[in-house]
């Protein structure tokens, strides 16, 4: 029983992290029909910001990380994607890949390809014991952060005028423009929010691994991409569910696979994903609206 609860804690924590990753991708896709593979590099930029500010007071270090990823995301849209607005989906996709490689190369030039080790405040790793279950405070923090972010995002989208405009733009971008919704503001907001999610993901990933490398965003962005596909591209809630599902499945495989097969965990994981998409090609959540690309 204790083992089971331990696994539940692990699954909740990993699922929360994956949900945060996936929402960052889904936010941009919902508005622009763009799968931004350079999202991983926002995480990398966040991690190097944390590294550069290692030793400064932690509130400053964490806030600066979020601020830098938000600014980087907005700049990414302004400099790399806006000139291609209206281009076809493959052009946007290739642009995002090119940007991803360019930023990784730039990071390699500046920081070399060797991992930079550092650690975040120790309270990320405090052991917590409830009954017979032991877990680190990071598990709890990851879950709580996900709840706060998803709740905050939902409130923003439902209650604020800008949120309503974003939902309208996600449903039909052209018609939204025709009722006066400012396309630049809506798209910049989507990127800023995506940057915020990437910054949070960077903090959680560094708190877990304690290193920054130029290619550290590639793994998370793949997970985020797969999670949004499973969730049904275009649905924010779907992306969150997809992320959770992947996290839970990963932990289940970790537990049930015999030692000899454990190194092939990801192969089993993605075989499961293929199976789901064969059974439900539209993903777990079907979006009613058809998105218009801008």
């Amino acid at each position, binding site marked *: 029983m204790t083992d089971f609860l331990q696994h539940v804690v692990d699954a909740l924590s990993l699922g929360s992290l994956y949900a945060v990753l996936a929402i960052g991708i889904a936010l941009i896709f919902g508005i622009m029909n763009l799968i931004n593979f350079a999202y991983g590099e926002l995480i990398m930029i966040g991690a190097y910001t944390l590294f550069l500010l290692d030793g400064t007071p932690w509130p400053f270090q964490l806030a600066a990380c979020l601020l830098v990823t938000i600014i980087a995301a907005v700049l990414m849209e302004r400099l790399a994607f806006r000139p291609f607005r209206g281009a076809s989906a493959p052009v946007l996709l290739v642009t995002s890949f090119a940007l991803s490689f360019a930023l990784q190369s730039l990071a390699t030039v500046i920081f070399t390809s060797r991992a930079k080790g550092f650690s975040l405040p120790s309270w990320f790793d405090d052991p917590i014991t409830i009954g017979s279950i032991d877990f680190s405070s990071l598990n709890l923090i990851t879950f709580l952060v996900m709840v706060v972010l998803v709740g905050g995002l939902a409130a923003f989208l439902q209650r604020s*005028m800008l949120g309503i405009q974003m*939902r309208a733009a996600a*449903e039909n971008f052209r018609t939204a*423009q*025709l009722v*006066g919704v400012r396309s630049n503001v809506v798209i910049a907001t989507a990127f800023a929010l995506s940057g915020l999610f990437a910054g949070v993901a960077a903090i959680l990933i560094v708190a877990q691994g304690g290193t920054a490398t130029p290619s550290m965003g590639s793994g998370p962005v793949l997970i985020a991409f797969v999670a949004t596909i499973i969730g049904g591209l275009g649905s924010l809630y779907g992306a969150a569910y997809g992320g959770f599902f992947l996290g839970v499945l990963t932990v289940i495989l970790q537990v049930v696979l015999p030692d000899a097969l454990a190194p092939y965990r990801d192969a089993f994981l993605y075989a499961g994903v293929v199976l789901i998409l064969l059974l439900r090609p539209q993903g777990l959540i079907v979006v009613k609206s058809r998105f218009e690309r801008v």
Partner: protein
Amino acid sequence: MLEIEKLTLAYGKAPAVSDLDLTVGEGEAVSLIGPNGAGKTTTLTAITGLIKPASGTIRFKGAPTGGRKPESLVRDGMALVPEGRQIFSTLTVGENLRLPAADLSRADAESAIQRELERFPALASRLGDPAGGLSGGQQQMLAISRALLCRPQLLLLDEPSLGLAPKIVDDVFEALEGLRTEGVTILLVEQNAIRASQFADRTYVLNAGRVVLSGTREELADAELLTDSYLGAL
């Protein structure tokens, strides 16, 4: 209010509209009619700035619209009731109405929305419902209200009677008549040729991307003339 000169619009190499000249004076109601595929919707789409002309100019309130974004034209006093209504089905009726009133103060937005609810009382009881659940007629009312909340000087309507029951079509034209008396300039695209030409001060008949006939209501009173031009006999 709106002057179009030698407008040519194309999808790839295939021209959809060729050398179109069209004017809409202030306070006027003009209709643009023609069969399916004549280029009516394409013309409206170009006027709103969503597609770029291959050649020719469009002037709105005296200034060329080339290079301007649709939302900037909307803020300048142009609004479209799009074909197929295109209400935001996942948003509530109230949210659909709040969108175009985003720049107004809360009190001004409330009173503007209230005026629309008096114009179309059927919407008042549905404010909190998802707009996708409205009937076709109610969706059209919502689309018209949404456009009017943009406070347009020029209102463009794309097939507002399409797919609606005759009684609802009467309601829509009655609402348009009311708008005309309020001084709103109207450009109406319709397949319902007789109805549209009876409503409008002037009518243009578009066929295969070209204007084949134009005239005032009185000049086009001869239904046979209209039908012939509509079918391409002229």
